[in-house]
């Protein structure tokens, strides 16, 4: 990737250091913060306890939770799609979804039931976006899951399109039980470590907690302003 341009920097930063009253900062060590309460939140809880918290929080964010295991995933997803009365589904091109059972076989089952399925396809460019725009359901897989806020963390990539969880009216996240952590603290540390190790991070990282909503009209909560109107989290027990 070619390097971008930077304009107007020197004068701008020189003025800042002048106003602060010292020469330009050449190197700054991030200090050890005196208080770090974020690490104490649910620190001693095991996965079962965290999952209970997660499920309780999903009530607050208008998100339905379904628990299943590898054998039941196809059925759980099919039932959710049926419940949404949707006729078209788009999903990430993600091996983990395939392996969990949302594979060719599942798609042909859906076809028999009159539900059109589409897998996000980098070679099909605009077609993928157009399908996402008219699809009734979008399905993604959770890379990390935050118990405190009921959040799925989506590390986007070419195969894992940004619009899959945004454009369709209904959203399904498949959540492996093992992906759960107490809160955002653990997720951001992992990303921080990747940066420290010199790895590139995804061009978009999306923290999604339930459906789109707004309280801009008389402070009353309405769902689905721009993104999905309904969301279901399907928790997949580890094999």
């Amino acid at each position: 990737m070619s390097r971008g341009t930077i304009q107007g920097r020197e004068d701008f930063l020189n003025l800042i250091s002048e106003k602060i009253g010292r020469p330009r900062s050449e190197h700054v060590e991030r200090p050890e913060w005196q208080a770090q309460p974020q690490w104490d939140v649910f620190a001693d809880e095991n996965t079962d306890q965290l999952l209970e918290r997660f499920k309780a929080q999903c009530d607050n964010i208008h998100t339905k939770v379904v628990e299943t295991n590898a054998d039941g995933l196809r059925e759980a997803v099919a039932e959710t799609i049926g419940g949404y009365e949707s006729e078209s589904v788009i999903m990430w091109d993600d091996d983990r979804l395939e392996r969990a059972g949302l594979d060719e076989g599942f798609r042909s089952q859906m076809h028999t039931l009159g539900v059109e399925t589409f897998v996000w396809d980098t070679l099909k460019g605009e077609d993928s976006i157009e399908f996402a725009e008219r699809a009734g359901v979008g399905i993604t897989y959770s890379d990390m899951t935050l118990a405190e806020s009921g959040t799925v963390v989506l590390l986007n990539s070419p195969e894992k399109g940004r619009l899959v969880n945004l454009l369709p009216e209904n959203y399904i996240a498949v959540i492996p039980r093992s992906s759960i952590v107490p809160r955002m603290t653990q997720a951001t540390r992992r990303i921080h470590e990747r940066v420290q190790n010199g790895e590139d991070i995804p061009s978009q990282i999306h923290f999604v907690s339930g459906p789109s909503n707004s309280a801009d009209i008389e402070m009353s909560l309405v769902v689905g302003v721009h993104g999905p109107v309904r969301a279901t989290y399907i928790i997949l027990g580890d094999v």
Partner: protein
Amino acid sequence: MPLRVGEKDFQTRVNRGLEDAFMRGTVRSAQEQLRTRKQASSEELGDWEAWRTLGEEIRTHTLEHLDYYLEQLSDKVAERGGHVYFAKTAEEGNAYVRQVAREKEAKKIVKSKSMVTEEMSLNDALESDGLEVVETDLGEYILQVDDHDPPSHIVAPSLHKNRAQIKDVFADKKGYENSDNANDITRFVRGELREEFLDADIGITGCNFAVAESGTISLVTNEGNGDLVTALPKTQISVMSMERIVPTWEELDVMVSLLCRSAVGQKLTSYITALTGPKSEDEIDGPEDFHLVIVDNGRSDILGTQFQSALHCIRCAACVNVCPVYRHVGGHAYGSIYNGPIGAVLTPLLDGYEDNKDLPYASSLCAACTEACPVNIPLHEHLIAHRQIITEKENLGPMPEKWAMKMFGTGASAPKLYRLGSKQAHRVMRPWTKGSRISNGPGPLKAWTNFRDLPAPSSERFRDWFAKRRRSNSDE
């Protein structure tokens, strides 16, 4: 829309606010809802004071090394193929965005909510070039469609409008024919805006926090409009005010946690979106071109002064939601896009005292704002400092106020004089006192007592009462 909005005269704006019974009702209930939710969700976190300390420490450190972190941020953005433009003034920032729009031969721009672009009047600049600019945050969209009505709250910009008014706006301007039910209105707006997203050439966003270590900008929203603004148009321009930056992802966690809880009482909003550069070559959604505009616009003048901590603000509006003055007069009375206590502190700093000399007086100095601030900005102390400057240096204040501030300044700094002064207060105020109330106070008290009585200084000072009480307790 510039930094300053609405009627020029402060008293006219205040009176208008006080006369608007509906607005006062919604403001009161919004304050209560937001404050209660904030309290509940911050209690859940355990040690809220430790969180505030951490928030303050992070903001202080980052501001003290702002040049370093901005340099790191811009290098990282450029490494990922993004373009960075440092704008000293609003005009420079606007000129850059206009230039990008020209190069892209853009016709339509979709925006997600951004305070700094409001401050810069960016929409006006783009519209003067014949571009169509669409605000996509529901509250901002309502205001835009209603002939650019100014926002009245930092987090909930259309708070002053009721459902019937909002319905009428859409019926008049957009041919909306359904009910005034919030769900029906939202459904309609969803359809309208979806088309705009799909048509737009450029998406413009603000930036809640930029992460220096990776060149990432983050957007905190509940609606997900920021996500569509950045995923659909081919070009993305993010505009950030220079202080909205954290060193690493670990601090992003802390600041976002404080913001969501303090602003809306949520653990996290529905969407936190972290964007690093343009899309990669084989990605099919996301912007092909990414520009970051970093704006000073008067902020560097605040650095190194007694007001530096005002730049710690993370725009959560927690101070607004507890302010008794905001509760009575509403957001428009401040005449600034930044309202409430932080607006009264920040607006004179960014726009000078001349046109904003009334704002630091729009406060009861009860310090509820300081208590509420998640990053410990001493807001009421900044308001007092503004008053001192206005009365002493700028020669703008009314005479009695000058006299009072001088007395307070001398008195408060010399314990003996303070004791004498507070003993005298009861006697000095006697001409205006009826029973235990002052209903027609002199000088600086007049504006206050026009609306309510002020308790008269007690003939017994608190210090004396407390000393007496302690003595009698120890006697027992």
